[in-house]
């Protein structure tokens, strides 16, 4: 991972800077946007109008360079651009004030296109039964802080627990798994990160040595640009407690939700225009959502 190119690296650097300066300049929420210059919010895989007017739908757009800079050698091909994304906002009501309040407190999440619901709460006392109530969010707000929030002052002997849940987009793909990504700063001032699989569909067993859950498989029919919801789950929910918690270390936690594989816009283009894509072109992908982090800061 290139240090200054990705969100997660910035979150890690934020912990480092906070230790030195007393303030974390990279304490941001996660929102998704299109980066499109077309004026269109059409970013579904089957309705992707490109990032710029020069990359609007055509039989050959996937094979055109999107960025080509001879002086730096940087080249991004058309097919590498991604049809995304959206921002989810947990607002108390659908008004300008409530939406901006929610963004201000970072109670937001990003998706690469599907309109999934994602909840993420952190606290000290979440119990597995909280993931079985009819209104998990009520438990979430009562016992913890939502995405974008802060935890501090760890009770003796307790590790932070997280109530995390996702509901699929009613017209999109099933869900593969929920992951929680933790980043932390050790005593030597080095940052680290770890990805935990915390909830997944079906009866897959995590690898005992790595903890990784095997891939969900695929139902994608690339030629016809379709898939079936015969694998995965329509919703996932769990309570997870950090097994590696050290109350002296600054940390952040955020949730990532993965859909089962679906055809990318390149597969839709290939079918619609009847063109054969070069072998390097990726035809499927796993759409996903990212929540704003919850930060733990030692007192």
């Amino acid at each position, binding site marked *: 991972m290139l240090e200054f190119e990705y969100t997660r690296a910035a979150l890690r650097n934020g912990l480092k800077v906070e230790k030195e300066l007393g303030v974390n300049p990279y304490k941001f929420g996660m929102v998704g946007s299109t980066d499109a210059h077309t004026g269109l919010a059409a970013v579904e895989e089957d309705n992707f109008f490109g990032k710029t007017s020069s990359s609007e739908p055509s039989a050959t757009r996937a094979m055109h360079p999107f960025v080509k800079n001879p002086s730096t050698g940087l080249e991004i091909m058309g097919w590498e651009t991604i049809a995304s994304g959206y921002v989810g906002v947990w607002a108390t009501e659908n008004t300008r004030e409530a939406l901006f309040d929610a963004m201000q407190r970072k109670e937001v999440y990003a998706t690469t296109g599907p309109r999934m619901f994602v909840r993420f709460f952190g606290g000290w006392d979440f119990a597995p039964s909280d993931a079985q*109530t*009819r209104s998990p969010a009520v438990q979430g707000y009562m016992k913890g802080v939502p995405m974008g929030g802060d935890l501090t002052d760890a009770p003796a002997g307790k590790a932070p627990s997280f109530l995390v849940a996702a509901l699929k987009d009613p*017209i999109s793909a099933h869900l593969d798994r929920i992951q929680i990504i933790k980043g932390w700063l050790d005593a030597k001032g080095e940052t680290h990160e770890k990805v935990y699989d915390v909830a997944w569909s079906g009866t897959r067993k995590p690898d005992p040595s790595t903890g990784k859950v095997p891939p969900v498989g695929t139902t994608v029919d690339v030629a016809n640009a379709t898939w079936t919801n015969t694998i995965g789950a329509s919703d996932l929910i769990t309570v997870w407690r950090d097994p590696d918690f050290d109350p002296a270390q600054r940390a952040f936690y955020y949730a990532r939700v993965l859909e089962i594989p679906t055809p990318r816009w390149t597969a839709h283009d290939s079918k619609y225009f009847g063109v054969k894509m070069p072998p390097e072109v990726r035809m499927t992908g796993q759409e996903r959502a990212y929540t704003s982090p919850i930060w733990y800061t030692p007192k």
Partner: protein
Amino acid sequence: MKTLLREPLLHFLLLGVALFGVYGLARDRAPDGTGQIVVTQSQIEQLVIGFTRTWQRPPTPEELTGLIEDRIREEVLYREAMSMGLDRDDTIVRRRLRQKLEFLIPDLASQIAPPTERDLVAYFDQHADKYRGEPAVSFEQVFFNRERRGTPAWEEAKSALSRLNAQHGSAVTPDTVGDTSLLPIEVTRSAVSDVARLFGGTFSKELVNGPLGRWAGPLESSYGLHLVLVRERVPGSLPELAQVREGVLRDLLAERRQQALDVAYAKFRARYAVVVEPLALAQGESGVSQRQ
């Protein structure tokens, strides 16, 4: 030298120079014959008003002189351009003139006969469906997760249904039967289309047809099965004219403008014999139909 004299480009250039010379001599006067440009007082006032609107203050004397100079420059160049025929066969000019006429005709028409109260009421009655609100629904729901329960989910939901509806005896509450979900357990006065967007599947269609005031189901959504208790159905109501008056007036005027424009266009069009020449098709091309 000989070859140079035979060069067609040279002939062309010489002829051009000669033409311009003759042209220049022939008309050193203004093309409109009068050779006079008068900047009227009202035009100057217009300039001042325009400037003030943009800058939130009147122009200084120097600025006003500049404005007037620019106005004169515009007039001179405009007249010269017109006399050279630069307005002809110009897409932008044609489009602008068409636009002007299309704006002008309906505006005149609507000013001649502004809609009366009776017109407004009649239009509102005729187009009532356009102003009707969407039906809304209030309900509670209990979710049954088919992925977790498997095939018995349907039967389990059915049995929960009868227990929920039982008047006496088994005291079950919605909280003790269904499964966890991020879907709202209670929805209040939500538009049916919003419910459809949230639950997917055929859920909202069945919801608006089911019984009122008692638990019913199971209904199927994109997520699984649901028992629902519909508390209230609010039909899409027709607002009073007073509530939507502005919109109705706007719609009525828009309709009248369009009608006026259509009538005027038909009259204009009748003045012309229109000939569309057949399209010369390249060999092998076909399938391009002609419209007369």
